């Protein structure tokens, strides 16, 4: 009967059902235990990272914090909590009192004041309390799930994977070819309730993962057996994340390969991102860790890997022998030689759609959402401002970090926080004013929407940041700027927005608007590369499939219909525009014959000088 959705066999429907059951069970697993304070772990965590020399200096015991905490912990003892929330509320209350008590003790009994460096070393800082939460919660989880994590892992992931493959594999029964039927009729792929629900779930996951990981304790316990097997130590939240990430790329990679099995470019490319994720991002670092070597994802490149030049990373690499030094040299060589060289030869795609982990997730898990990227001119304008701003931010931040590293000097500049907010709005306003003067024809409504959305998010983020701090000033120092970058760009943009927004703004939000490495490679691709997407003469029918399915929001049709090769900084060379073109108009290719003039050729049939008869 007539219907507006793709065919699904009984097997596929059962597959979806199994997957949903597994997902619900997995989510419910967060609460399949009770929480009772694990005192040895808390004791160990409290002392972690405090120098014993410093403690000695003020005649403090090694167990100073633990002893002081005894009274505060009384309400937690012998008390069992049903949820991570209840447990952490109690724990945080106790830690808050402990913080006050430590401060009081330092001031009154040890004679320290806030202007002493040692005071800040010894005081129990907020980040420390935050860091304690996850390991303590994980250790405190008791009961059904921790006792049965092995078979629960097998059951949940077994059923989930079975369901996923029961849904994906039967797609081979369809004849090979472009499969975009009903994409815009779908509640999942065109911002229907399924898409919105997926987006909300993903955003929630990322917020919890980055900022409230203690609530994921049970998931981490679930994957402990895998972590033990791979690297001989229990899992933490980042192992969990890496595991889920890799699984998503592998499973959805199979889907991508089936969908494009008629197209060898996509098959090989998808194998490539699956391989790099599994081997380089997941397995090799675990193996290195189990061998007590510095564990690094060797394909991750600064400035995407923004912490590469942080002093702890440099020190760690230098101090861990030949391999560490090799990794340091390798990382620098990739930035200085690898990126320009490979990008000259093959364009941005050598990294962004063949190797990169963010790209790998976008090309597999994100493929069903590629059509949601915005194609408007103003979208492109915002993209250029934003992504290059992040690049400048990353370079500036790294410069400051290195300056501090080499000189031991941490320059600080403070200003009132509300003044700072107003300053940001003034700069933003100036940019908007400048934009309106440059492009008066762009509709005001669209601009307002974008400015409203970005401005609101930014303002809320900053105000929230202010509320969490006691100080009324904003300090611009190396460490402050670095922590901002980590919070807003590293976690907020790359994680929460980057993946959480797949179902809303397409699968390349981060790559397009935020990735500083993509911006860097893009500059090489735009100005000095052999790569381009060739237009095939005048064969374009302006249908718009290429633009619609461009994940980077490039209006490919604009170029194709005038017979102009596409040379754009943003293009990640995924090749989907060429694949979905019904008339064989586009081809990704490289040539050194015309690197400097490749943007000029107009291949469509146009009227030329020779055709015009001059009136005499």
């Amino acid at each position, binding site marked *: 009967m*007539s*219907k507006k959705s793709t065919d699904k066999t009984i097997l596929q429907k059962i597959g979806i059902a199994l997957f949903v059951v597994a997902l619900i069970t997995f989510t419910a697993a967060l609460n399949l235990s009770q929480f009772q304070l694990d005192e040895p772990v808390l004791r160990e965590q409290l002392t972690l990272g405090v120098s014993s020399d410093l403690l000695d200096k003020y005649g403090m015991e090694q167990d100073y914090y633990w002893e002081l905490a005894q009274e505060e912990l009384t309400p937690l003892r012998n008390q069992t909590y049903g949820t991570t929330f209840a447990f952490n509320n109690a724990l945080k209350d106790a830690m808050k009192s402990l913080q006050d008590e430590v401060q009081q003790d330092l001031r009154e009994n040890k004679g320290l004041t806030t202007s002493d460096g040692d005071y800040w070393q010894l005081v129990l800082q907020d980040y420390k309390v935050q860091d304690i939460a996850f390991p303590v919660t994980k250790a405190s989880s008791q009961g059904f799930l921790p006792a049965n994590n092995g078979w629960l892992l097998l059951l949940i992931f077994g059923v989930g994977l079975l369901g996923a493959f029961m849904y994906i594999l039967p797609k081979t029964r369809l004849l090979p070819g*472009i499969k975009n039927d009903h994409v815009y009729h779908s509640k999942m792929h065109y911002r229907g309730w399924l898409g919105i629900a997926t987006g909300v779930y993903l955003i929630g996951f990322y917020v919890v993962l980055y900022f409230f990981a203690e609530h994921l304790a049970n998931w981490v316990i679930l994957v402990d057996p895998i972590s033990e097997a791979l690297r001989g130590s229990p899992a933490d939240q980042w192992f969990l994340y890496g595991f889920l990430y890799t699984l998503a790329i592998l499973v959805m990679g199979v889907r991508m390969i089936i969908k494009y099995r008629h197209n*060898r470019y996509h098959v090989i490319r998808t194998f490539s991102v699956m391989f790099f994720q599994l081997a380089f991002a997941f397995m090799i670092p675990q193996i290195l860790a189990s061998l007590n070597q510095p564990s690094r994802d060797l394909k991750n490149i600064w400035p995407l890997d923004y912490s590469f030049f942080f002093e702890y990373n440099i020190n760690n690499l230098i101090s861990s022998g030949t391999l560490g030094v090799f990794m340091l040299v390798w990382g620098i060589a990739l930035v200085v030689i690898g990126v320009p060289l490979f990008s000259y030869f093959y364009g941005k795609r050598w990294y962004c759609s063949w190797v990169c982990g963010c790209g790998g997730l976008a090309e597999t898990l994100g493929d069903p959402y590629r059509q949601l990227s915005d194609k408007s001119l103003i979208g492109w304008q915002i993209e250029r401002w934003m992504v290059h701003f992040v690049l400048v931010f990353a370079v500036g931040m790294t410069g400051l970090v290195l300056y501090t590293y080499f000189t031991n000097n941490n320059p600080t500049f403070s200003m009132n926080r509300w003044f700072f907010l107003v300053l940001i709005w003034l700069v933003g306003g100036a940019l908007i004013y400048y934009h309106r003067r440059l492009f008066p024809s762009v509709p005001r409504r669209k601009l307002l929407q974008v400015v409203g959305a970005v401005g609101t998010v930014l303002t809320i983020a900053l105000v929230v940041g202010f509320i969490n701090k006691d100080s009324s000033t904003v300090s611009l120092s190396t460490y402050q700027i670095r922590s901002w970058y980590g919070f807003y760009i590293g976690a907020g943009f790359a994680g929460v927005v980057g993946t959480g927004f797949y179902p809303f703004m397409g699968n390349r939000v981060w790559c397009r608007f935020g990735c500083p490495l993509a911006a860097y490679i893009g500059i090489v691709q735009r100005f000095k590369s052999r790569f381009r997407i*060739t237009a095939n003469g005048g064969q374009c029918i302006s249908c718009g499939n290429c633009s*619609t399915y461009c994940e980077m929001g490039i209006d490919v049709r604009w170029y194709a219909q005038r017979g102009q090769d596409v040379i754009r900084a943003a293009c990640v060379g995924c*090749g989907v525009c060429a694949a979905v073109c019904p*008339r064989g108009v586009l081809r990704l290719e490289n040539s050194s014959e015309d690197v400097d003039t490749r943007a000029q050729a107009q291949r469509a*049939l146009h009227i030329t000088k020779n055709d015009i008869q001059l009136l005499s």
Partner: protein
Amino acid sequence: MHIAIIGNGVAGITAARFIRKLSDHEITVISAETDYFFSRTALMYIYMGHMRYKDTMPYEPWFWEKNRINLKRAWVESVDFDNKKLLLKDDEPVSYDKLLIASGSNYNKFGWPGQDLEGVGGMYSYQDLEKIEKYSEGLERAVIVGGGLIGIELSEMFHTRDIPVTFLVREESFWNIVLPEEESDLVNREIRAHHIDLRLSTELKEIVDDGSGKACAVITDKGERIDCGFVGLTAGVHPNTGFLKDSSLEMQKGILVNEYLETNIPDVYAAGDCMQVRAPLSGRRPIEAVWYVGRIAGETVAYNMCGVPVKYDPGIWFNSAKFYNIEYQVYGDMPAKMPDHYASIYWEHPEERKSIRLVYDKESSEIRGFNLMGVRYRQEVCHKWIREKTHIEEVLQNLGLANFDPEFYKEYEAAVINTYNEQTGSKLRLKKRRGLSGVLRFLRDITYPARAPVDKAKKVKQS
């Protein structure tokens, strides 16, 4: 000067864009179909859910204001050529100094009984699509009449909605008035692989009224009755010139134009599907309802309307289409039935639905045309060989230059040469494989980049 353009399809809009590039004339584009220009060839993708309507618009709405192209949504009822006025339905008349008629086509009806019933329609305009969408709800079977490009697209559209299709094709093989026998058969197989009830050598005799003025079945020339809820008429199109009847405009099937796309009335031009060229260039037909023709004619007529005489020259024939999963491209001369002085080299993939055909002149051995199914070739390379009347063996040995398939795809050019060697006893080998560098060097020879864009603004000021 005020230039009015009837029709916002590719011909009218291309003309408007180029008039704006060439001049400061006031431009008004009038269409009853849609507010904005969209790609007519993409209508099927809206129905199939690949794109939304707005994705088929090649230019964002602000583009028209920025380029000072006025868009008017109105129905032109007739043209008062003497007073240079367009008479609109329910609207004030519009005066013009120069007029371009780019009113496109309508689908053909050949006087079948029941052809005007409810539930019978073509697939040309946005309104046609709306109608098809309306009838798709709960549709149990559709019958499509006419085996051409639109017919096969319509069958694919219904296929994606799981609506069973009976496809009546008058010819004994799909589109064999254009496709050579083997390619035509390839498409037959592709259609049937999608479980379409393809009826070759079958014509429509009448459409049956269900008693309420709605179609409920068709009867074929074989006397068979096929129940259906929708009948798609896709037996070609004809110029949409009904509103010009009984005027002094000289017309036959289409609006007659000379080589400058001028009609018999001064300051009135025609371009695109609705035009009929009085003296077509050799190898070209007087009426060609093709996207590319509309685009080239639109550009040409813009020059002429701006006082820069340019002869209409669509160049070497090319076209493209997609038959379900088979992409089709043609370059140059490709007769469905090979005349005696033509020889043809045909290679077909043993398993997949892919084929390559080269046609050349037996006497001179000059290449004449390329026909590709499921394989992509470069227009510029093929056209250069055809334009320069290259020897077939020269073409074959360099055939890799033409290949435009994505990277890592298998290349079949050696197999094509084998076919030729077997046919003629030659021992040719492939010298050039796929690759852009070779292509750029090849195209740079002699003709490239002779087609450099004109410095348009300067030209106009001279004239």
